[in-house]
């Protein structure tokens, strides 16, 4: 059976899972952790660092460490999101060539999908190591409220990482899949997903192995990071009040405070008090040193973040009302995302829904497990699960006056199809430009532009006479296609709308290739490392036996010959290690093994061991 993994590419943590013998399992990384920080860094030696290593060195290399890249993925340079990140992050954000956002790390500029691809590549390696085979296909989750550009960018990231992304699914949906998989449930559930960077709420109807999303909504800029920022700001302010020092410009100090804030927030989920202890936080030019020692109570944290929690509750309320679902219809509330460990959130959610949230799922792993289930369901017909997902945003076109005309409403189950007849607005209009937009705003320009195309060759006629039928369809895997048909002539034109991730096809192709190169290098260096370790062990063993063997065999010419040969082998081995040539080293390892065997044979025969 082919290995198809599910990857939860989170804002702060990433997790990979696979269904093995019908059981979804999280794959631990090399360090034995089930989740890997979504962090990428370029070290001083231009080495790429991913995950825990990147996180560990973040304090010392804050400017060249990317975190929360998910907040930028698929965003435009002008978007407020990009600006917000620019303000709060220690790394440098620059404008890309296509109005997209890029990150400068050391001397290079990286696109966001690229940095995400580094993480995905790492996850791919983790999975391959665990499974002992290649992993080429994956299902990746995104926040339900991601628009098509963000989804496409995530897909591109997968492609750069050498993964065929067979499906992008929504995180809350994935969580529900993991929640209901393998149980014969007949339930209506709400999934409250508050992750590192995004908030999602989804309502699902589960039954007979069919997971039907009824409604989904969210905020792609509301998550644990925002909670941390609140704590950070409070810490900085208090530090300034106490010491009179403003650390706002000291990126290193900010990074340390950020880490400490995150740590304290997590601690406060279980303890009522936490101490933020950051010695030597700041040194003035006059070598005056300041330490931060701030006690933080749970009450303070809750006070600082209460409005954020209320925002999530308001979204829940609106979603339920829009979907015309009564709270009493819900059978269960599933909490997903590390943030939901916060007692305030748990109690507010329980209070709002009037239900004790389900404790049966692991908030950090459930999304990846769900992704792996969907992956298995798609490639393996023995997995009897069907997901009916919805499109989270309305889809439509721009009409005269710059207004947005919706063709497919948000929360419509995919695959879906809708058409509308438009007329020309000018006399003798021979072509019509169709702008495909996504969003909920009535003004076209306030929505996300997905693509555009021109239907030409219309009959010359007074305005309003020529009718054009525009048909939108969204396939099960989320591909949007738009067809425009001149009802008079029957002339038809259609495109598959490819949302823009900010990368052109050429760029993508190049990135895919360079990534493959990188992988080859990584593999080669890993292989060499393995060989080197083996060779060094063998050399040591041979050297240990050398004096004894010399004593036994130096009497005969055959013995002397053998000893000199062994010396030659050792020589070549050391040279090979130095030259970092994996292939020659492989041959030498074999010779070393033979030499060691011979030596052992000699020594054991004479009984001198």
């Amino acid at each position: 059976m082919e290995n198809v993994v599910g990857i939860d590419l989170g804002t702060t943590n990433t997790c990979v899972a696979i269904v093995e013998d019908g059981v979804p399992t999280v794959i631990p990384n090399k360090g034995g952790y089930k989740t890997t920080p979504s962090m990428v860094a370029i070290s001083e030696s231009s080495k790429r660092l991913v995950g825990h290593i990147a996180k560990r060195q973040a304090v010392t290399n804050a400017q060249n460490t990317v975190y929360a890249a998910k907040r930028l993925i698929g965003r435009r340079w002008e978007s407020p999101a990009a600006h917000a990140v620019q303000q709060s992050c220690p790394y440098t954000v620059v404008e890309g060539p296509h109005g997209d956002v890029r990150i400068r790390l050391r001397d290079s500029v990286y696109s966001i999908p690229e940095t995400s691809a580094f993480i995905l590549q790492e996850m791919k390696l983790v999975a391959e190591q665990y499974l002992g085979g290649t992993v080429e296909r994956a299902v990746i989750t995104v926040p339900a409220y991601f628009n098509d550009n963000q989804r496409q960018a995530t897909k591109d990231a997968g492609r750069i990482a050498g993964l065929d992304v067979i499906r992008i699914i929504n995180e809350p949906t994935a969580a529900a899949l993991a929640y209901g998989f393998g149980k014969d449930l007949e339930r209506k559930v709400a999934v409250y997903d508050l992750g590192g960077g995004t908030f999602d709420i989804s309502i699902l109807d589960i039954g007979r192995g069919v997971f039907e999303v009824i409604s989904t909504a969210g905020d792609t800029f509301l998550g644990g990071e925002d909670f941390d920022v609140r704590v950070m700001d409070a810490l900085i302010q208090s530090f300034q009040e106490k010491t009179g020092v403003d650390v706002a410009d000291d990126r290193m100090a900010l990074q340390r405070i950020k880490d400490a804030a995150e740590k304290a927030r997590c601690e406060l989920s279980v303890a009522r008090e936490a101490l933020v202890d950051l010695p030597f936080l700041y040194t003035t030019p006059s070598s005056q040193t300041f330490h931060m020692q701030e006690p933080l109570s749970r009450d303070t944290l809750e006070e600082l973040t209460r409005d954020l929690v209320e925002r999530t509750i308001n979204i829940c309320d609106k979603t339920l009302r829009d979907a015309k679902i009564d709270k009493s219809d819900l059978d269960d509330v599933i909490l997903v995302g590390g943030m939901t460990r916060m007692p305030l959130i748990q109690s507010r959610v329980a209070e709002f829904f009037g239900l004790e949230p389900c404790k049966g799922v692991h908030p950090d792993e459930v999304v990846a497990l769900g992704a792996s289930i969907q992956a298995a369901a798609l490639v393996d017909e023995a997995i009897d699960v069907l997901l009916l997902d919805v499109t989270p945003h309305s889809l439509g076109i721009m009409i005269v006056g710059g207004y947005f005309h919706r063709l497919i409403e948000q929360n419509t189950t995919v695959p879906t199809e809708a058409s509308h007849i438009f007329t020309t607005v000018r006399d003798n209009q021979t072509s019509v430009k169709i702008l495909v937009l996504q969003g909920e705003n009535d003004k076209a320009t306030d929505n996300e532009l997905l693509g555009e195309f021109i239907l030409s060759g219309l009959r010359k006629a007074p305005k309003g006479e020529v009718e054009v039928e525009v048909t939108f369809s969204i396939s099960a895997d989320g591909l949007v296609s738009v067809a425009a048909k001149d009802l008079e002539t029957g002339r038809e034109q259609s495109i598959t709308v490819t949302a823009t991730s900010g990368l052109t096809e050429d760029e993508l192709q190049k990135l895919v290739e360079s990534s493959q190169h990188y992988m080859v290098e990584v593999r080669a260096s890993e292989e060499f490392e393995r060989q080197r370790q083996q060779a060094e062990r063998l050399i040591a063993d041979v050297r240990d036996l050398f004096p004894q063997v010399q004593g036994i065999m130096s009497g005969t010419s055959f013995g002397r010959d053998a000893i000199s040969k062994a010396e030659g082998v050792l020589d070549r081995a050391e040279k090979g290690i130095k030259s970092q040539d994996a292939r020659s080293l492989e041959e030498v390892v074999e010779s070393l093994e033979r030499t060691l065997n011979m030596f052992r044979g000699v020594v054991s025969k004479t009984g001198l061991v």
Partner: protein
Amino acid sequence: MRLALNPQVRAETLPLDPQEYFVLSRVEGQPSVGEIIGVSGLGPAVTEQILEKLLELGALARVEAPARPSTPTRPPHERRARADERRRTRLRQQLAAQVRPPAGAAKPQRAPTGTAHAVASPPPPPPPEPEPEPLPDTVFIEPVPGDDARLDPSLGLAVYDQRVLLAMDDRRQTLSPYEFLGLAPTDDLKAIRAAFRDASRRFHPDAYHGRSLGSFGGVMSRLFVDAKAAYGALQRADVRAPLVAEREAELERRRQRQQQRREAAAAAEALARNEREAEAAQRRAARAAQRAERERERINTARRAKVAEYLQGAAAAEGMENFAAAANNYRLALQIEPEDQDIRARWESTRAKARRIRAKDAYSRACSLIDLGHASEATPLLVEAAQADPTTEHLAHAADAVRDQDPVQARELAMAALRAMGEEDKEGKVKRRPTVEADLRLMIGRAFLAAGQSQSARQQAVLAQRLRPSDPKARALLKSAKVT
């Protein structure tokens, strides 16, 4: 669902009409209902109804494992086969849960008791009461013909499924929301939800991810969109109501048809029973008449024998001059045959003879007693003689004899004697000598006198004097009469 002939049932023995037999004869191998409808050429409604009946009668059986020949072009992918099988199993379970099992067929029919007669063989047990035919709870959409140009056996989709999908796609514009979900109209929202989930599994392209679907991908997407829209529409009561009402009406029509059929059967049964009962009553009446006839015969025979016996006895008694016994026999015979005038005549004549003889006997004994001087002892005998044979002589003697003891009876007897004398004179049979008559008149006269009727007594005395002048007795009587 596939059907096959039931080898244990001989079709010739079933109550089938030609059309039903024709449909049965179309079943070869294990065809599906749709295929049978196709080959029967009778249209789905009629054929389905007939198939239901045939299934009920046991002529056809449902085949559990669908023996659809797997298309050789389909890769024998084990998982895929399993998935297909699972889909089908689910559909089957759904069908089994919804279609009620035909009950009643197993109920043993007891022969009617109570009216059993030795003559009439018990009527054949009526055929088991069929349950009202259930309307299938799932909707069957006839697949397009197997030679449709759009079918492509090289796709990863069974040809039969392709045919069904195409049929639905062709009829997209006309199918009702319920038909898209493959469900019979119902208000049960749970059932509608379940049907939508099953429809999703049939139409959602993800259910076939990785298979080459060709143009069927689009077909399925379209049908999924329709099924979703249908599901949405069916949440509204005003959409469901007319469709459910239509089905209810159809169910009601079927129920009524069933009811009518049942009633007709019951009426026919009742008619046959009435006929049987009328026949039986007739037979009973005939038998009773025969029995009565035989009884009458027997009684007549006995009567005739008795009469003959009496007559014989009478004849014998007559022969021995015992007229009293003969008369008695005749009377007994006449009691049996009151209408027999011959016997009556003979009874009367013998009785008369017997009386005369008895009177003569009593008279002669009375005479001898009187001769011996026992006049008082002779009196009853004289009265008896007068009663047995009321001749003038007997009456006159009796009247004379009783005059002292019973003057009233004496007068009666005297008057009877006068009447008898008048009758005898009129008939002229008896030639009395004048002296005898004079004696008689004297006797009568004495009786009258005793009774106090001196006028009559004198008259008799005068008449007696006229017959025998100078008779002392007459004179004495006259004198007595005058005195009084």
